[in-house]
């Protein structure tokens, strides 16, 4: 296992480097000057040009791209990702204070999507071609086809306006801070995120379960006198998890993409909002930092998928 991990990690690191080069080059090559655009046209005055030039020099934007990359790399390896072009704050700080809420949202969202997908998938597989199966298919198709922001807007209208059961924005009420309050704010965004991701998972679970339910060992379990629940859960389900878990792990970046949209709609103070405004304002350092995070997430989730596979399937254990 250790040798496997080391090998995978070294490949990942190489890929990671290539990604940083690509992102850096692409971001800095986008047309437009982030410093110049900070001054609206009707507020230009005689000192503006000098201000812009000074700021650019200060941030090193007047150097050639490879030089800039080199500086960035050497700093990054020491844990310094530069400063935001907008407000001068260290990128690590800016990202750091937003990552918590996003992880929270993604975590609970993932949990909810699994809580929807697993039972539905198992039931649909057991009662194939029944009304329950068709219903589950409709639900899963809906979760995939209906855009997340659309669902979110409807939910906001119904649940926070018509019936005022939930707050519609923010992570908590500043005048009433408590874990319960935070959870209250978390419910709607996490449920919508979870629902949106549950569709594909449910389909995977269902098809995996159908395959396993037709397997010989299921017949053996029945022949031993095992009750149906035990056969489904303890035998078939455990086997069906093997492909499903790896798919879920590899889908984590998808979860992040969904979280970005939800965060916008619900004013959830996570990385999604940061990313959108950084891109709009051409805040190079933040964009690169954010893209880096995603790259790490993708690499980690793929690695996780591979590791999970070996953990879950005893036939693939590495010696």
């Amino acid at each position, binding site marked *: 296992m250790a040798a496997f991990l080391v090998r995978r990690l070294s490949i990942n690191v190489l890929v990671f480097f290539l990604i940083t080069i690509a992102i850096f080059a692409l971001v800095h090559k986008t047309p437009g000057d982030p410093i110049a655009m900070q001054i609206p046209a009707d507020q230009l005055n005689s000192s503006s040009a000098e201000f812009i030039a000074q700021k650019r020099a200060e941030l090193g934007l007047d150097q050639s791209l490879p030089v800039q990359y080199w500086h960035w790399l050497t700093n990054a390896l020491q844990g310094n990702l530069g400063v935001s072009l907008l407000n001068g704050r260290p990128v690590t700080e800016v990202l750091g204070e937003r990552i918590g809420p996003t992880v929270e949202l993604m975590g609970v969202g993932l949990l909810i999507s699994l809580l929807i997908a697993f039972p539905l998938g198992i039931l649909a597989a057991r009662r194939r071609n029944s009304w329950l199966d068709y219903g589950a298919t409709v639900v899963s198709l809906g979760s995939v086809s209906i855009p997340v922001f659309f669902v979110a807007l409807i939910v906001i209208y119904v649940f926070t306006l018509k019936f005022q059961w939930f707050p519609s924005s923010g992570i908590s009420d500043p005048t009433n801070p408590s874990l319960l309050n935070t959870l209250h704010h978390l419910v709607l965004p996490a449920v919508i995120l979870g629902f949106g991701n549950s569709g594909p998972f449910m389909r995977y679970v269902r098809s995996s379960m159908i395959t396993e339910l037709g*397997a*010989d*060992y299921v*017949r*053996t*379990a*029945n*022949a*031993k*006198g*095992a*009750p*149906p629940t035990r056969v489904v859960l303890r*035998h078939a389900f*455990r*086997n069906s998890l*093997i492909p499903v878990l790896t798919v879920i792990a590899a889908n984590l970046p998808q979860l992040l993409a969904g979280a970005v949209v939800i965060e916008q709609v619900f004013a959830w103070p996570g990385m999604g909002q940061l990313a959108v405004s950084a891109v709009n304002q051409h805040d190079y350092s933040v964009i690169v930092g954010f893209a880096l995070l995603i790259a790490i997430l993708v690499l980690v989730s793929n690695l996780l998928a591979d590791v999970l596979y070996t953990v*879950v*399937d*005893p*036939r693939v254990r590495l010696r």
Partner: protein
Amino acid sequence: MSDGMLATDRSYAESVNNGPLLRVDGLSVDFHTEDGVVHAVSDVSLNVHAGQIVAVVGESGSGKTVTAMSVLRLLPKSAEVMADAIAFRGTDLQAMSPAELRKVRGGPVGMIFQDPMTALNPVMTVGAQVAEAVLLHQRKPDKKAAWARAVELLRLVGVPDPAQRVKQYPHEFSGGMRQRAMIAMAIANDPDLIIADEPTTALDVTIQAQVLALLKKAQAETGAATILITHDLGVVAELADAVVVMYAGRVVETGGVQELFANPRHPYTKGLLASLPRMDVEVDQLDPIPGNPPNMADPPAGCAFHPRCPLARARCETERPLLRDVGAGRRSACHFSEELA
């Protein structure tokens, strides 16, 4: 539970019910497929007495496996099972609720399947699966006792170093050892009846002999009756007391193994025996039965065997022969079985 007590139990049971351990009467199984209805099994009857080994012989598609599976209702939902009676120890299995049937499965009736690689759960340890067989039938679930019994069972079936092996997964066992484990599961709760579906077919020849020996030993020690499904006449000769020959979903001949081998009363059985390779006689060529097994979706009219039968006559094409007594506990479904006497 000692074996001695078991034997008394059985004869007691039998004397009370005054009948065979397992009685199957008029069993028919239809499969509803997209291409129409397939009559996999038609009007099959067989009896198994306590301690008896009955071999059910036939080619692939003859309906022997389906017959065996229908006893414990292990067929898929697309199968329609109809029988006048499927009675075990006098109780009709068809009338049982699922919960009651589950008490029979893996308890008084144990099953051994053909391919132990797929028949064992790949993500559960062998020990867990054997212990599960015990746990499911304990009055009070006792995991420790079940695991201990699992180790003991593995030792019984000849798995070396059972205390270690019990924690291993099926893919870490060899083919023969897996089948031993399956046998261990089947006999875990001292069954009265073992149904073995082609237990050696998936194994290579050298292992086959070992597993067969094991089956013999298990049967001898537990005194269980056995239904042995196979297409291998050599296995039949080794183990069976009685033989049921099936063709195209029907029983075509029954009888004791010695008599049947010495004196087959159905052209199909004769053909089977003739096609066996023999060590003691020199032949230039093997002598197979000509033709192919019938298409069960559209079987031949009259006697299903007539296209391949050396004795076939006009009558065979239109009139299906009924299974009838031909003397000395023998039955045959052929219009011209006298000619083979």
